[in-house]
C-alpha cells in the first residue's frame, strides 16, 4: 500500500536504545536486589503522519514505553527524539512547548475526566495551563466539540451523565485543543462496545487525515491494530520482537511470537476456525528473572541453544521490517 509519507518519511519520534528499569529493593535499607527491565533497549522510528500500533500481552511494557516517550517517567538509558529534540534534556519553557505538541488518550474515559468538573472545564484545563486566555479557550473548546462530532450542549454536562463513547470523544476533544502533532492512544477503544468502537476508530482516522497527526496506538486487540495502523510493533517482556508494515505483519509474520499472537487472536469468521496453528503454550514470563538469551526462548517452538545463551539483535529483512530473532540473522 503506497502512502505519501512512506515515500519521503520525516521522523516524528526517534527512539534509540531506550531503557526503563525499575529498581527492586528489599529490607529496611532498600538494598538493591536487581531491576525490572520493563523496557529494554528499544529502537523504533515513528514517521510524521504515520499510525504505529503497539501490540503485546499485559506486562510486555507497552504502557511503560509510552510513559517514557511522553517523559512522564525518566528513562534509565537511551534517548527519545521528538521532532529532532531530546525531551529528557529540555527544561522550562522548551519542555512545555514540546509537551504541547504531544497529547494522550487513555483507556478508561471515566477515570480520565474529573468527575467534579463539567466537560467545558475539563477541556479548557490544558489550555489554561498553557496560558491560553479564557475567552479563546472557550471558543476552542466549542470547536473541539465540533471536531469530535458532539453537540455543544454537552460542554455543560458532567462525566457521570455521559456514555462511554461520549466520554471517549471528550477525552479526544481535550487532547486536540492544543493542536498536537503527536497523539499517544493507550487502549482507546478497549472499554467500548463494538458499534461505539467503530465510531471512535472512524473519528480517530478522520482527525488523523484532517490534521496529519502521528499516532502511537497501544492495544492488545489485533483486529483493531490491523484496521488502524500503518505499521505494527510487537513487544514481549520489554523487548521489541518485530516491527513492520501492517500488511506484512498480519499476512506474513516472521517472529515466532508474532505468529503465536496472530494465531491466538480470534479471526471473526467461523469458517476459518479450523485453520488454527501454532497455538502458543505457557504464559508471559516474569520481568524479574529474565533469561540470559532471547526473552521468548522458553515459549518458542524453534528455540535453539543459541537462543538460550545469546540475546538476538534487531535484524532487518527489508528497509521497513525488523525482526529480533536468530532465524533472520543473515
Amino acid at each position: 500500500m503506497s502512502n505519501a509519507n512512506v515515500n519521503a518519511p520525516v521522523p516524528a519520534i526517534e527512539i534509540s536504545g531506550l531503557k526503563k528499569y525499575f529498581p527492586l529493593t528489599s529490607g529496611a535499607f532498600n538494598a538493591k536486589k536487581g531491576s525490572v527491565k520493563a523496557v529494554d533497549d528499544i529502537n523504533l522510528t515513528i514517521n510524521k503522519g504515520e499510525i504505529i500500533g503497539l501490540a503485546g500481552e499485559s506486562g510486555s511494557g507497552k504502557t511503560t514505553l509510552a510513559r517514557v516517550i511522553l517523559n512522564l517517567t525518566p528513562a534509565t538509558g537511551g534517548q527519545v527524539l521528538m521532532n529532532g529534540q531530546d525531551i529528557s534534556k529540555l527544561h522550562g519553557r522548551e519542555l512545555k512547548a514540546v509537551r504541547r505538541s504531544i497529547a494522550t488518550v487513555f483507556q478508561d474515559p471515566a477515570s480520565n475526566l474529573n468527575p467534579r468538573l463539567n466537560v467545558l472545564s475539563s477541556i479548557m484545563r490544558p489550555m489554561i495551563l498553557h496560558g491560553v486566555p479564557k475567552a479563546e479557550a472557550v471558543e476552542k473548546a466549542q470547536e473541539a466539540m465540533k471536531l469530535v462530532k458532539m453537540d455543544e450542549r454537552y460542554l455543560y454536562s458532567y462525566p457521570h451523565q455521559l456514555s462511554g463513547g461520549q466520554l471517549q470523544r471528550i477525552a479526544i476533544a481535550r487532547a486536540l485543543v492544543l493542536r498536537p502533532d503527536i497523539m499517544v492512544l493507550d487502549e482507546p477503544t478497549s472499554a467500548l462496545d463494538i458499534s461505539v468502537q467503530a465510531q471512535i476508530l472512524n473519528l480517530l482516522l478522520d482527525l488523523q487525515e484532517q490534521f496529519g497527526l502521528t499516532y502511537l496506538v497501544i492495544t492488545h486487540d489485533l483486529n483493531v491494530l490491523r484496521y488502524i495502523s500503518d505499521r505494527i510493533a510487537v513487544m514481549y517482556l520489554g523487548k521489541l520482537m518485530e516491527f513492520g508494515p501492517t500488511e506484512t505483519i498480519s499476512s506474513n509474520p516472521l517472529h515466532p511470537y508474532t505468529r503465536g499472537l496472530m494465531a491466538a487472536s480470534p479471526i471473526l469468521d467461523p469458517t476459518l476456525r479450523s485453520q488454527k496453528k501454532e497455538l502458543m503454550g505457557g504464559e508471559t514470563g516474569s520481568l524479574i528473572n529474565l533469561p540470559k538469551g532471547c526473552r521468548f526462548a522458553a515459549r518458542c517452538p524453534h528455540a535453539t541453544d543459541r537462543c538460550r545463551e545469546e540475546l538476538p539483535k534487531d535484524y532487518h529483512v527489508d528497509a521497513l521490517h525488523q525482526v529480533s530473532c536468530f532465524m533472520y540473522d543473515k
Partner: protein
Amino acid sequence: MSDIVTKLDNTEEPLLRLEDLSIDYRIRNGYLSAVSDVNFTMNRGEIVALVGESGCGKSTIAFTIMRLLMDGNEKIGGKILFKGEDLNKIPVRDMEKMRGKHIGMIFQNPLDSLNPVYRTGSQVEEAILLDGLSHKEAWERVINLYKDVRIPDAEKRVNSYPHELSGGMRQRVMIAMMLSRTPELLIADEPTTALDVTIEAQILQILKDLKTQYNTAILMITHNFGLVAEVADRIAVMYAGNIVEQGNVFDVFAAPSHPYTRLLMRALPRKTKHEGRLETIDGNVPRITEKKPGCRFANRCPLAKEICFTENPPVLTVSHDHTFSCHFAEEASKL
C-alpha cells in the same frame, strides 16, 4: 420434589428451554424491561453464545437461570425449563442442589469467586466433598482436574493460594471447580474478557475439549464476536432485552439477517483502513420502562417504518436453524 434427579431424566426434552422469558427490574417509578419475550433452546453438548452490547440483558438471563438475582427487585415472567423442570418454580433448597451439580457458572473475574485465604485446591475439593467422597479420593480428583484444565505442575499448584496464580490460572481453577461435579450446563459469563489473547485461546481450547470430553453444554455470555466465531455452535444476538436473531453460527455469520446483526457485523474491524471506514449504528440503546408493541431496534434502524413502532415483528425463518425478527426481511437483506 425430593428425587429431582430421576424426575429430570427426560432426554427427549432439550437441556435448557427459555419460554417467553421476561425480566423486569423495579426502578423508582415503575419497571425497567431488561429481558423480554426470549425464546431459546439449548441441547446437550452444545456451545451457545449469547452476544450483545452492554446493557442488552445477556448477563441478566444468565443470573436468572442460576436464580442469583436476589434482591427481590425483579419480576420474572415466562419459563426457564431445565430438562423440563421450571427453575423459577422449584423450591430454594432444590435450586441449591441444582447449582454446581447440574448447572455451573464461571464469571469474568475469577478473583472475585475465590477465597483469598484458602488454598485453591481446598476450594475445589470442597465442591467434590459434597458428593460424599473421602478426603484422599477427593484430593486425588482435584489433582486430576487440575491436569484436565492443563495447569502445569498440578501436584504443586493445588497448594497455591489465589494470589500466587496468574489470571489465566485462576480461571482454570474456576473451570476445574465447576467440572468437579460434571454439570450438564456450564454458564460462562465473559470468561476471558480479563485475559490476554494467548491465554484466552488456551481457555477456549480447554472449554472446547470439555465439551467433547464431558458432553457439557456451555452457555457463553460475551460481547466479543471473535470468541463466538472461534468456539460457538450456535449464536443468539440480543438487543435491548430481545433476541433479534439466532441460529447456527456458520449461517448467522454467512448471512446475518436482522438489520442490527448486519450493521454490527460490519462494525467489526475485519479489514484495514484502506478498505474504507467501519459501519456505525447511530443513536443509543433505548431504556424501556413501558412495555408496548413494536421493534426495540426501530429508533436506530435505517429501514424503520411506522409499523416497526407499533407492532411486534414476526419471527422469520431463514433455514431450519436460523431465525430473526423483522418486519422488512426483504429490505434487510439488501441493507
